[in-house]
């Protein structure tokens, strides 16, 4: 029994999706000439500005392609569903956004992405383009605290890319942009749960099996298993478990401020996400933490997976300023 999808041939899904995206957002986005999957901002890359290239597998929309635009990423390299893009489109993005001030690669910390982006960086070096890389590692459930560097990047990309994009837009130099991007990552903490699997357009089969009364805790965004499986709990208990861990890691002082992202994985209604946000706020209020801004919605998805994540970015004045800096992308706007 195949899962139900509105697709044509599964192998064409990514390219057809990009056709549809470019048709809808031609004011914001264009393909790099001669490529299919290197998407560049119409307004963004410019001389003297550090170019920001993001990317990864498809299936997380609006991440990554929706975050390309003035004030955020200059280009995104798009892979197959849940598969890193190969070096070619990454290199094409790199060349397209190079303004002579260097290029920053940002993407989630996955073995496949690391290998492909690193190969692209080696090729870019042959073109005398200086490339730096900042991996996102916000998923606190994916490895213990003392191995933060081996954690994977999930919905926190949203904040981390946003802040780095703002730093680029303000024409800071590559060292400074890199510093800020690393800081943004270090200040961002995500935890997720999944209730039901997604399926790939090619396999049309659930990516994993899960019991009718179970949830997967500390889930990734590709249908990978999480750190544990447990009985499905009420919303407040789920959020409490997330916030306990996030607060323990973030270790905020009373009066500190955060930015919040309550993110749906694809098939969870806004109703449920806002019910979660209610509890997130109660917990932050109880801890004396202020909320600078909140986004609730499907920002980093896993196709039609059911589930959600909560991300807190621990703010200081610098991160707040970059977060508030305007951006104008096809699927995300600030200011």
């Amino acid at each position, binding site marked *: 029994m195949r899962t139900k999808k509105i697709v044509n041939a599964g192998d064409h899904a990514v390219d057809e999706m990009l056709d549809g995206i470019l048709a809808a957002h031609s004011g914001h986005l264009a393909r790099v000439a001669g490529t299919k999957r290197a998407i560049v901002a119409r307004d963004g890359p410019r001389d003297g500005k550090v170019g920001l290239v993001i990317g990864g597998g498809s299936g997380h929309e609006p991440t990554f392609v929706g975050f390309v635009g003035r004030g955020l990423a200059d280009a995104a390299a798009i892979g197959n569903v849940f598969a890193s893009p*190969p070096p070619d489109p990454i290199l094409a993005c790199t060349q397209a956004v190079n303004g002579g001030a260097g290029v920053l690669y940002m993407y989630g910390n996955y*073995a496949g992405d690391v290998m492909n982006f690193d190969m692209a960086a080696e090729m870019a070096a042959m073109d005398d383009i200086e490339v730096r890389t900042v991996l996102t590692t916000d998923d606190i459930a994916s490895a213990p605290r003392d191995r933060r560097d081996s*954690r994977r990047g999930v919905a926190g990309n949203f904040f981390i890319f946003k802040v780095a994009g703002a730093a680029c837009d303000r024409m800071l130099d590559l060292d400074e942009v890199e510093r800020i991007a690393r800081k943004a990552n270090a200040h961002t903490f995500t935890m997720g749960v999944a209730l039901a699997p997604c*399926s790939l357009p*090619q*396999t049309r089969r659930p990516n994993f099996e899960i019991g009718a009364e179970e949830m997967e805790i500390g889930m990734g965004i590709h249908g990978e298993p999480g750190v544990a499986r447990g009985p499905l709990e009420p919303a407040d208990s789920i959020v409490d478990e997330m916030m306990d861990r996030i607060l323990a890691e973030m270790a905020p002082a009373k009066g500190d401020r955060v930015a919040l992202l309550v993110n749906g994985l694809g098939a969870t209604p806004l109703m449920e996400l806002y019910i979660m946000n209610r509890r997130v706020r109660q917990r932050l209020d109880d801890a004396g933490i202020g909320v600078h801004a909140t986004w609730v919605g499907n920002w980093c998805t896993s196709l039609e997976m059911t589930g959600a994540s909560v991300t807190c970015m621990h703010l200081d004045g610098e991160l707040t300023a970059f977060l508030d800096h305007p951006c104008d992308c096809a699927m995300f706007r600030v200011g």
Partner: protein
Amino acid sequence: MEIAASDLVRMIAAVADDLETNKDELCRLDGLIGDADHGIAMALGFGAARDAVTALGPEAEPSAVLNAAAKAFLSGVGASCGPLYATALMRAGASVKGKARLDDGDAVALLRGMETGIRDRGKAEPGQKTMLDAWAPAASAAEAALSAGNDLPQCFDAAVMAARDGAEATRQMVATKGRAERLGDRSLGHVDPGAASAVMVIAAMARALPA
């Protein structure tokens, strides 16, 4: 036995066919401890490689075939297996550079070249529950069989058997590389999909050796 460039083309096509056939099963395996796309990526990669090498002229040398396969694999796939197999094929090409036809020793060196490419690119060691756990014993078994005086089909058979045992052994391993790394103990009990596909790759190569 001698392997010509046209034999390599046929071997790559055989691998592509087998992966296409087993695509679904590899996705299923990847679903258990990964993201369920390994079969898609492998079939796509070797399919692209096959198309590229089939398009080469008859004058292409073995190393040119392997380089063309590497390039096609690299730009056609992405994922983890893209850079890994692209590097494997590139290194295999380097290992037979300048030869018009491969003798038994060259063919066994080709297997070792692939293994080295995977190791260099992925920076994994055997025991970390990756495709290397099939490739490393396979290359060693082929070398040992050759030293023991076996012919190439026998060397490849030894490689296939060693790969199979290696893949099976990943069941007992906790992943410390790749996507499954974050699972910790939950990766136990499942075969690594990359190791499973490695068995298919080596077995298809063996089957398609010139008669």
